[in-house]
């Protein structure tokens, strides 16, 4: 038998029963809350995202839209074609935010967790059907680091080549220095461009000569009794010649009109000749027939003596 202990409190059994029931309810409530938190009771629709690298994606992570979690990764699997399939359970009440034109991104930063995000630009598009498969765009800051380092190294090498003692840029700078040095010489910019003071002097002399040549040309061409005066006289004479030629052409025109009239008369005469010829042909045929008749009827017909027409 269980003897009561000296300091046995009252209603031990009742208190123990209260504790048992309370803790039982607490455990059940806790399990229910965790299941609710895990989304067991929420109706969801499946969305399949395809990518080529699953690093950072873990089952249970959220997919957010505008910062609000609307779905949860339920499974990550490798498909037969070597692509990673991320199965996302999107809550049915939030599925309206996903449209056929929605874009999905997977961003991994250097510090912190990978984030799966959905973007919808056009909310008027048809809603995304359940079980749809979409490809996901990866924005991986750490994946970019090797490429950035390689590019930076190349850039630095190029910079080193450019700044080396015998580099092209140094040579160009030396040339520029020489040119500007010449520019600051007595011949100024012209000396710099022409490559030296002597050349610049030659150019100046050439310019002087061209100048004097132009003066002479002006005198000879446009001056008194110059080429231009002669040309002016010649032009005037040419005008007179042209007027004469014009009168002559008018005369030729009249002659042609007359010739046309002659031609018309000749045509009429030709038409009369046609009729005359027809009559002559008819008369000849009559005479022919008459001769044939005489030949048949004439007693000398057997002697083959025929009357010959002229």
């Amino acid at each position, binding site marked *: 038998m*269980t003897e009561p202990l000296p300091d046995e409190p009252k209603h031990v059994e009742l208190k*123990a029963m209260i504790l048992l029931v309370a803790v039982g309810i607490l455990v059940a409530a806790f399990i229910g809350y965790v299941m609710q938190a*895990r989304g067991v009771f929420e109706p969801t629709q499946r969305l399949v995202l395809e990518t080529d690298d699953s690093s950072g994606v873990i089952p249970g992570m959220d997919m957010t839209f505008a910062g609000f979690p609307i779905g949860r990764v339920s499974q990550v699997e490798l498909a037969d074609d070597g692509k990673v399939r991320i199965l996302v359970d999107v809550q049915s009440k939030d599925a309206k935010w996903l449209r056929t034109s929605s874009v999905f991104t997977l961003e991994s930063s250097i510090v912190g967790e990978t984030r799966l995000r959905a973007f919808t630009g056009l909310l008027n598009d048809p809603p995304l059907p359940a079980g749809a498969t979409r490809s996901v765009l990866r924005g991986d800051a750490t994946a970019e680091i090797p490429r950035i380092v390689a590019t930076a190294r190349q850039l630095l090498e190029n910079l080193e080549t450019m700044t080396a003692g015998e580099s092209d840029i140094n040579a160009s700078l030396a040339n520029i220095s020489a040119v500007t040095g010449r520019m600051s010489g007595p011949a100024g910019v012209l000396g710099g461009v022409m490559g030296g003071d002597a050349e610049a002097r030659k150019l100046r002399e050439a310019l002087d000569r061209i100048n004097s040549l132009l003066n002479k040309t002006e005198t000879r061409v446009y001056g008194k009794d110059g080429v231009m005066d002669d040309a002016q006289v010649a032009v005037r004479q040419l005008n007179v010649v042209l007027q004469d030629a014009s009168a002559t052409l008018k005369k030729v025109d009249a002659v042609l009109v007359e010739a046309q009239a002659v031609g018309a008369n000749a045509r009429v005469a030709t038409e009369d000749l046609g009729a005359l010829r027809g009559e002559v042909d008819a008369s000849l045929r009559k005479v022919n027939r008459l001769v044939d008749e005489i030949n048949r009827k004439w007693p000398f017909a057997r002697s083959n003596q025929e009357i010959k027409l002229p």
Partner: protein
Amino acid sequence: MPHTLATYANPRHWGLAIARYLRSWWYMVHLGAVALVMALSPSTYNRQNRLAAARYIYASTWQVLPWFALASALISLVIIRIVLVTAKSYGLSHFALEMVVRVLVLELIPLSAAMFVALRASMAFDASALGLARAGLSARAANDEALRRLRRDMVPQLLANAFGVLSLAMVTSTIVLVLAYLNVYGLLPWGLTDYTRTVGRVFTPAVTIGFVLKTVFFGLAVALIPTAAILELQRYPRRVNVTVQPGALRLLFVLLLIEAASLALKYI
């Protein structure tokens, strides 16, 4: 032959020492299995055992729960504030809540509940013997009486201690979850959806099963190991350092082992 330190220092007796060690563990496991089978058979739950179980539940849970909950809430509040403020200063405040739930609810509270129940109820053998001694029995008679009660009430005590660990862990975990919410979002209900999602992210099926299993194993260890150690001592008497509660070190070792295994399974 008395088993003293000299025995273990002699290499010729190492085999014996190992055999004794293994036998001790086997005795504990065997006793635990028997106790479990008895706990699962309906015939155990007669009026006498129910009353004993109620008495042990009262001792291991009812008396402990308010003070343990209050102390845990205070310490948890401090830890939650430290984590939140530190995380905020590093700009990582969105990880703070998850860390609080992981560290406090999943790890620290079950362990401290197990320790507390072990100290309060399970290692009370000497204390109960002391109580009997105070009631007028001689030291030896009190010891025998305590041992007799221990053997008779083993199953109710095992159930009560396991239940004590579970209820302490559950109640305090709930309080900590509420405190964490209040610390982050204040008295407003608008963060509830967000908070629920965070909790859902932490309590994956594997973690939840691990949490429940760990709590149950803690309860079993706390209930079984000290009792087994005392009964073994009574069955295979040997000279021991009487200032240490039998089984205390082994209980500590097993608790740490369970905690380490749970951590390894979860995070490795």
